[in-house]
């Protein structure tokens, strides 16, 4: 069993007990524990079930590479699935539960898959479940889905908050182990601005676990003084609980700071995503120990040798009373020695190397530990916990030489540098034969905006494993990063440790090397995704020879640990099967993030109210206070209508229209774009932008204009007012202000840069109110001030002056067909102006109206709406707007495009009005079919509805449509099928339904 030892545990505060709950059981750990160490201390070795076969799984590792110990953590709005026990600091009140089993961890029905494992090899689902056809969707897929997946889906809205932080450094050092600390010091000594980040809560990494001395002092003391030294450096920033999540182009680094995962009740953000720009990045990310591939290497109790040591030394936890150590390198001897020194039994060290280990092996023997060279494990005994091992000759096929009882196995297959961050942005790797691992290829570093390398690996992340080599490499890395960042490094002597003489490791990719199919089927490569040696071999046999094919066919390395433990073993297995050297088979591409990061942190502050900007007009407050139903229009919110006393939206719209047409309405039109275009060439410029002639517009007058893209399509419309000889004010649509402003600047800056024109966007300088209806003039006259009579301010004229107290510009324009003024006042006067109009209009029962009433009234009048009559495929000619296209101009944007054969054709769909014979309203978006089918069997069509409304004014449905040669077909009756199967009959009519002669607006 695993248990807490009476002594040891350098990271623990044993004075402070911490209570937590696992699968409903109340357990106790200490401050400083990880959830994993606390569980082990409570003899909870088995922590979950595997993905495919639902086999029992135990804790394998002590860090981010852990594939098995994933939990449903927390409750309610703080619930989170797939939280790793090894990277979770224990806190008081933590609750967690194991995943992927039913009904319980101990007894899981899904384990039937395990008994059928022989029938479920890699890729079996590609070969079956094909008949009958419907069965995949209705039978097989639901079963697969239900048995796959890991943690539960959260149900509640996340109660936590998140944020981003932009930061800039000369050198960012990722990893706060011995190499990172030393590299940071070496870089910092040059004066460079340095960030050192460490994913755990502790500085120093794994070096202190092994004790020893550096520069004559104990490792722990050496690190403590190094940390103090760094803290004292003003140019060095240190952040722990912050992981280097990803390296992106041009020195962009994501730092994932878990601010409050360990203090979930604290006020403040849970995670903070640092978006860092670094000139140079030092990856001191360490190395990860590889498992060995032997049968039963997934039985709970089989653990990485270094992790066994970590648990003993860091947390005072023994994972078993009797631990068999199996290895192909010297480092695992340290585990045996540490266990023995802690009073635990190590019945045997199985060293797969025929020649055995070096000085550490002698030390182990001296402690009385039995060491067997050239031996390995044929098979691990036990189901939910190791009960023993069968020993075999590594060189053989697995005949059992001896069985030994034990309750834990510590394995080491060698070490792989953590090269993820190096690789994220294109750094290449080379194969190191001596260590049997991939390490960064310094000659192919990822390059930055200047084409220069910007990532420098340091320490074990760069390949060296020996302490002194690591220390020297770290100094070099820190210095070269500082230099590359433009600083002059101060030469610092590398610290010196006491190193033991180690024998060379020997790669072992299968144990025993001649293991037959039965053993290979039980030798796991990827614990979480249940990929075994036999699966990779099968993939190669079937032609999935590329490493990417093998990965995808077997799912090797695709689990939540992203192959941290399995990649190299899988690759070597594949290479072995293909009879190719490992580097020739290649490696897979590492993608960010290094370790999963919360979506909350990625979204940052952009949630709920601050999800996206909401743009308000100066009058929005009134709208909210008066029950406006808002619709989003770009980032703006505009009132769609103002329902009163339980009215439906349709009823409200009808009331708003009727009252406007009969007496007085008003609309907040502030969102309309307003661009000032000014300069000696302003007229010439607008002549190019609009299809019609603007340069001839008289000062004091307004003209409606159309804008097209260079591709000929209508992109915007609006009224242009000439303010003075050199100045125009161009109105755009609500969505068009920024777009058209940018459009104008683009042409002025990139094509006609010698034209003397300036543009300014003054959209928000003004609150603009449309005052509409037969009583519009009266209400303005009531406010007093400027003369708004027909004579003083005729249709399509504008004028500056005072209205009451307000500084106003009045435009006599109409989008409704009524007598209408659009009044612009400075935004800061907007709300007061609106209120004044309401007060003055009370006697006319003034009716604020929303966008839907606006749309209906313009449709009644036959005016087009950008976005309704146009959709990016419509040219002005389609809308019969030749009147707005100047014949005199040689050029305007879009003119050449409109000369192309398809656009110049008379055979296009053109705008008409439609009236249903029975007065019904045609559904939005309806198409008008024609006889027959096209070559693809689709019904031929001859037009479509662009706008359709119930018109309160006409008391019937009205519509506009683009119809094939429509204007030539006046009076024709068309069939319009609706989605409920009925067919409406509609007559082609003029698109102007209301007041064709304009008598109402010209008063």
């Amino acid at each position, binding site marked *: 069993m695993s248990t807490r030892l009476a002594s040891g545990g350098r990271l623990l505060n044993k004075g402070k007990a911490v209570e937590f709950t696992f699968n409903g059981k109340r357990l106790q750990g200490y401050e400083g524990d990880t959830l994993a160490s606390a569980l082990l201390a409570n003899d909870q070795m088995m922590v979950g079930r595997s993905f495919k076969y639902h086999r029992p799984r135990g804790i394998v590792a002590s860090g981010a590479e852990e594939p098995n110990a994933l939990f449903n953590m927390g409750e309610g709005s703080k619930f989170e699935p797939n939280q790793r026990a090894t990277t979770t600091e224990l806190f008081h009140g933590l609750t967690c539960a194991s995943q992927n089993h039913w009904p319980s961890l101990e007894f899981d029905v899904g384990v039937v898959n395990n008994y059928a494992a022989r029938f479920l090899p890699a890729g079996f689902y590609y070969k079956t479940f094909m008949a009958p056809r419907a069965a995949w969707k209705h039978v097989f897929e639901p079963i697969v889905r239900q048995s796959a*997946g890991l943690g539960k889906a959260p149900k*509640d809205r996340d109660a936590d908050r998140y944020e981003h932080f932009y930061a800039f450094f000369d050198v960012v050092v990722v990893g706060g182990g011995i190499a990172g600390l030393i590299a940071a010091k070496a870089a910092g000594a040059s004066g460079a601005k340095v960030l050192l980040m460490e994913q755990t809560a502790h500085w120093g990494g794994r070096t202190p676990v092994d004790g020893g001395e550096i520069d004559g002092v104990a490792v722990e003391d050496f690190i403590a003084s190094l940390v103090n030294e760094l803290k004292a450096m003003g140019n060095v920033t240190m952040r722990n609980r912050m992981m280097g999540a990803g390296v992106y182009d041009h020195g962009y680094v994501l730092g994932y700071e878990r601010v409050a995962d360990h203090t979930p009740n604290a006020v403040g953000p849970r995670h903070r995503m640092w978006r860092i720009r670094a000139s140079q990045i030092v990856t001191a990310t360490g190395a990860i120990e590889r498992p060995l591939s032997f049968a039963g290497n997934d039985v709970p109790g089989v653990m990485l040798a270094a992790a066994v040591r970590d648990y003993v030394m860091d947390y005072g936890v023994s994972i078993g009373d009797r631990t068999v150590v199996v290895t192909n390198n010297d480092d695992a001897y340290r585990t045996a020695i540490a266990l023995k020194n802690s009073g635990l039994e190590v019945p045997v060290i199985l060293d797969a190397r025929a020649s055995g280990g070096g000085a550490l092996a002698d030390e182990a023997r001296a402690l009385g530990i039995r060491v067997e060279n050239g031996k390995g494990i044929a098979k691990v005994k036990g189901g939910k916990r190791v009960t023993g091992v069968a020993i075999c000759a590594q060189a053989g096929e697995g005949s059992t030489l001896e069985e030994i009882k034990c309750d834990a196995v510590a394995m080491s297959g060698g070490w792989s540098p953590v090269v993820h961050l190096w690789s994220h942005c294109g750094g290449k790797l080379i194969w190191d034969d001596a260590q049997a691992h991939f390490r960064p290829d310094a000659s192919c570093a990822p390059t930055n905006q200047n084409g220069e390398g910007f990532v420098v690996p340091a320490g074990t992340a760069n390949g060296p494993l020996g302490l002194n080599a690591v220390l020297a490499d770290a100094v070099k890395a820190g210095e070269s990063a500082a230099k590359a960042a433009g600083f002059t490094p101060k030469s610092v002597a590398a610290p010196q440790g006491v190193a033991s003489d180690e024998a060379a490791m020997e790669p072992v990719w299968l144990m025993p090397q001649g293991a037959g199919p039965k053993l290979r089927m039980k030798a796991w490569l990827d614990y979480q995704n249940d990929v075994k040696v036999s699966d990779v071999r099968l993939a190669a046999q079937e032609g999935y020879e590329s490493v990417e094919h093998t990965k*995808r066919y077997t799912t090797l390395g695709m689990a939540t640990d992203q192959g941290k433990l399995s990649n190299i073993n899988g690759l070597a297995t594949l290479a072995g099967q293909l009879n190719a050297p490992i580097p020739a088979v290649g490696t897979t591409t590492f993608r960010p993030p290094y370790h999963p990061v919360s979506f909350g942190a990625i979204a940052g502050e952009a949630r709920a109210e601050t999800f996206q900007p909401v743009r308000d007009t100066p009058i929005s407050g009134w709208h909210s206070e008066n029950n406006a139903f808002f619709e989003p229009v770009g980032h703006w919110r505009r009132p769609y209508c103002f329902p009163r006393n339980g009215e439906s939206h349709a009823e409200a719209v009808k009331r708003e229209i009727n009252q406007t047409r009969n007496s007085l309405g008003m609309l907040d039109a502030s969102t309309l774009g307003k661009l000032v275009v000014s300069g000696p060439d302003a007229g010439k410029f607008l002549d190019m932008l609009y299809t019609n002639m603007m340069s001839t517009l008289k000062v004091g007058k307004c003209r409606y204009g159309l804008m097209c893209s260079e591709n000929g399509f209508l992109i915007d419309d609006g009224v242009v007012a000439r303010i003075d000889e050199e100045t125009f004010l161009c109105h755009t649509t609500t969505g068009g202000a920024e777009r058209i402003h940018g459009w104008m600047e683009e042409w002025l800056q990139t094509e006609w840069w010698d034209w003397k024109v300036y543009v300014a966007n003054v959209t928000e300088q003004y609150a603009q109110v449309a005052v509409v209806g037969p009583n519009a003039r009266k209400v303005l006259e009531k406010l007093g001030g400027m003369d708004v009579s027909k004579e003083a301010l005729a249709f399509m004229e504008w004028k500056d002056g005072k209205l009451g107290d307000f500084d106003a510009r009045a435009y006599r324009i109409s989008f409704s067909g009524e007598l209408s003024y659009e009044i612009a006042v400075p935004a800061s006067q907007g709300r007061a102006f609106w209120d004044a109009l309401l007060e003055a209009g009370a006697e006319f029962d003034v009716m604020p109206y929303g966008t839907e009433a606006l749309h209906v009234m313009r449709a009644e009048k036959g005016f087009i709406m950008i976005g309704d009559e146009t959709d990016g495929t419509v040219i002005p000619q389609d809308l019969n707007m030749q009147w707005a296209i100047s014949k005199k101009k040689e050029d305007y944007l879009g003119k050449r495009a409109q000369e192309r054969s398809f656009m110049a054709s008379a055979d296009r769909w053109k705008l008409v009005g439609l009236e249903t014979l029975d007065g019904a309203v045609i559904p939005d978006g309806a198409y008008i079919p024609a006889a027959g089918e096209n070559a693809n069997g689709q019904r031929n069509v001859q037009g479509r509805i662009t706008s359709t409304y119930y018109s309160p004014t006409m008391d019937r449905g009205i519509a506009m449509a683009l119809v094939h040669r429509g204007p030539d077909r006046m009076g024709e009756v068309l069939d319009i099928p609706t989605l409920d199967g009925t067919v409406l009959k509609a007559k082609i009519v003029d698109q102007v339904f209301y007041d064709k002669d304009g008598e109402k607006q010209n008063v």
Partner: protein
Amino acid sequence: MRRYSAFAIAREAARFHTGWERAWRSPEPKKKYDVIIVGAGGHGLATAFYLGKNFGITNVAIIEKGWLGGGNTGRNTTIIRSNYLQDPSAALYEKARSLYETMSQDLNYNVMFSPRGVIMLAQTEHEVRGYQRTAHANALQGVPTEFIGPERVKELVPIINLNGPRYPVLGGLWQARGGTGRHDAVAWGYARACSDMGMDIIQKCEVTGVRQEAGKVTGVDTTKGPIDCDKLGLVVAGNSGDLANMAGFRLPMESVALQALVSEPIKPCMDVVVMANTVHGYMSQSDKGEMVIGGGTDGFNNYTQRGSFHHVEETVRALVETFPMVSRLKMLRQWGGIVDVTGDRSPVIGKTPLGNCFINAGWGTGGFKAIPGGGWATAELIAKGEPGPLSAEFGMERFIEGRFIDESVAAGVAH
């Protein structure tokens, strides 16, 4: 080809799976083929497959510079739908979708087509009208879709937040027969079937030149030597511009990065595909339990298969807002692919200035769902030398005539 079945698995299990044969051969190139297809992605392999199946042309080589299915076929978010607005698109994508329905049986390879349904959310009045229009168009095109209200959306997607402070869900365009498929399996299944017909799939073989005489292609130069052909098909997605350069013509296309990402796997919580175009994000749950997520493209030319992080950020915040539970999930992996985007965002299947050279390209963000349809249409084009009805509108001449196929009307982001 030995058939795959449950029986075959049982038989193999008895002998520890030692009897499985290669899914496809790995031959050296012959000197000459009737047709060379450059690009062993989904579209290239499907083109070859339908050349054999529909036209009996099997003396075909499919040349791939990397590993088959390793480009965008293996990098997309596996959505399959055909609820397109414009007639030519709807015809092509519906053909593809209907071929997906029987693909597992046709290829004897389970591609796990999962017609679980696709919803495109309408979150503005404008979008409501746009999707109602699509529903009407689809009805006449023979593509069953319907516009559904918010309550129905909630029934189909219980984890959705209907009333976000910014964009309420006003309804959605629902295509019940859309869904997802296993992307790698599509390439592998086609490859196995092509190889079985005697076609040569030549991996790790890069085309370095297009040999021509008198305005016609005579073959290609490759890293495995010259190979002659009577007809050439260029089906290379993100590398189309490069191949066109070799062949001496330009394309109305640019190559940009498109990114996708997945969460850690969780138990089933969403049974359909949801696309939220107003906020630029879409999401489905894979059979493994990962939430598969995509968004928009970068704006600049890029061949690095790495995109900019802010697109991931934009997509993720959209999904956190639309599906609040996502906030406490974690991003497992992000990646990028290079897509060709044309001037009207619709693909090109058509002739090139070289008489016997044909191109299938420009799928932008929508290539995977079109694979069988694109392959079908391209095979017809190559076999007959002229486009058939499915590809008639997709030739490059449309850019001269101003006759575009613009789907942006219906979808802010397509994929």
